């Protein structure tokens, strides 16, 4: 209840109390505005840094290892980003080339299709020498592909889907080899995440190898953003929301753990280094458990002794190639030597 009385009757005490109330509220308003403005500005800055990765040049081509290959360009699915890559035909024992079983190679973040650190080009060559054609490409914002924000799989999954579309209906560089009879995928780190997300949407990817994948990216970012930015963890949600406002990237949605079960009955081979200092090897079992939740799942795991993050191939060497090609041979069947119509 209030009274309405003449201002002339307001006592000095009342005036002073009214002024104090206004000042407290004004101070609270200023404090909140300054605090939130500073938080927003810093979050926007962190978001711009988070998604920017300088593009690394390729250190070599398959020709360096004596392999035939063609440079290719194909569009990503949905947004048609023109991606660059190589198509390396598989080599059969008699020296004949083949494209019947083609593996899409997906690299990790802040690197490219040759990725010297993870030995990606060497592995592509090894697969080709075992009779598998290889489509190795640079995801958006990497290598020779156009600049793009690093979205940790949120947009990059369209690149993998674009690669699958290209193999099924694009203009392939070796028309005499026909179209691939089967398509498989291999991905490392971010590439593994991207491949898992894409394969859940694209049944044409018939078998997958996920090396050093993550169940979700938010938990990695919740560790890395404060660590790299030397900031308290409270800036992580702000930066992730700012990335959504700036680039339309929803990092909270990059969760292969939620979609991996949809890949069944197609087989998945999870590989992880037991000395992975960036992405704990327990994450492989989280993913494998999620994948096995499908009733008709075919899941294998391999914990590579002594391997750090994305170093399983470099650590296990020939054993890695043997185990992975055995997996593909079993999942995709042998090369029949026949050429499929294009």
């Amino acid at each position, binding site marked *: *209840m209030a009274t*309405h009385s*003449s201002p002339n009757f307001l006592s000095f005490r009342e005036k002073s109390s009214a002024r104090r109330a206004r000042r407290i*509220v004004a101070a609270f*308003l200023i404090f909140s505005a300054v605090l939130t403005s500073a938080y927003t*500005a810093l979050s926007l800055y962190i978001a711009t840094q988070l998604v920017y990765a300088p593009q690394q040049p390729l250190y070599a081509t398959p020709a360096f290892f004596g392999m035939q290959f063609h440079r290719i360009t194909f569009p990503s699915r949905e947004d048609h980003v023109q991606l660059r890559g190589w198509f390396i035909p598989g080599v059969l024992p008699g020296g004949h080339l083949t494209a019947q079983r083609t593996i899409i190679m997906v690299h990790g973040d802040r690197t490219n299709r040759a990725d010297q650190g993870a030995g990606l080009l060497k592995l592509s060559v090894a697969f080709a020498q075992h009779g598998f054609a290889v489509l190795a490409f640079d995801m958006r914002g990497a290598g020779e592909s*156009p600049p793009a924000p690093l979205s940790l799989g949120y947009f990059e999954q369209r690149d993998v889907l674009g690669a699958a579309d290209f193999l099924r209906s694009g203009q392939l560089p070796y028309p005499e080899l026909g179209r691939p009879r089967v398509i498989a995928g291999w991905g490392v780190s971010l590439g593994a995440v991207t491949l898992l997300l894409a394969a859940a949407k694209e049944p044409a990817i018939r078998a997958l190898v996920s090396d050093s994948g993550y169940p979700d990216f938010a938990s990695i970012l*919740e560790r890395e953003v404060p660590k790299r930015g030397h900031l308290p963890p409270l*800036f992580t949600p702000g930066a992730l929301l700012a990335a959504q406002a700036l680039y339309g990237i929803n990092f909270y949605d990059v969760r292969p753990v939620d979609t991996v079960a949809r890949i069944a009955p197609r087989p998945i081979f999870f590989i992880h280094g037991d000395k992975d200092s960036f992405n704990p090897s327990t994450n492989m079992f989280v993913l494998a458990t999620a994948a096995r939740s499908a009733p008709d799942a075919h899941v294998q795991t391999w914990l590579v002794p002594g391997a750090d993050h994305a170093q399983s191939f470099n650590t296990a060497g020939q054993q890695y190639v043997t185990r992975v090609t055995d997996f593909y041979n079993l999942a995709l069947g042998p090369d029949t030597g026949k050429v499929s119509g294009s």
Partner: protein
Amino acid sequence: MSTSSIDPTGSQQRISVAPHEALHGALVGLIPLGLLLFVVVVVLLLAALGRQAVSAVGFFAQQQVAVSILIAGFIATIILYALAANRTLRQVALWQRSSLHVRSRFALWALGFTALVVMLPVLLALLLPQHPTP
């Protein structure tokens, strides 16, 4: 609810108070918040539209447009919010001088609530649980 009082000219009049006065005060106090939310939504929509409009040009152009819109929107938001809050506080002072206590009190509570809502993103970021990978 109503009460009798005497206005500055000395004539007696009946005025309705609590519910109407409280609502009036609260609504005026919430104007800065309403304006703030409206501008934020408009800026976010503009940023999304701007991003879409230049998506074919490339990432750097897209980033430049989005950052420019957000920075301009951010500054515009702060200015509009400060002006609206200042105007409301002046209005409250006027009501206090006119002894419209219920109205002024509710307007101040609404402004306090506004400050709390403005701080909400920071408070949520502080309080919401995070599960960083070890």
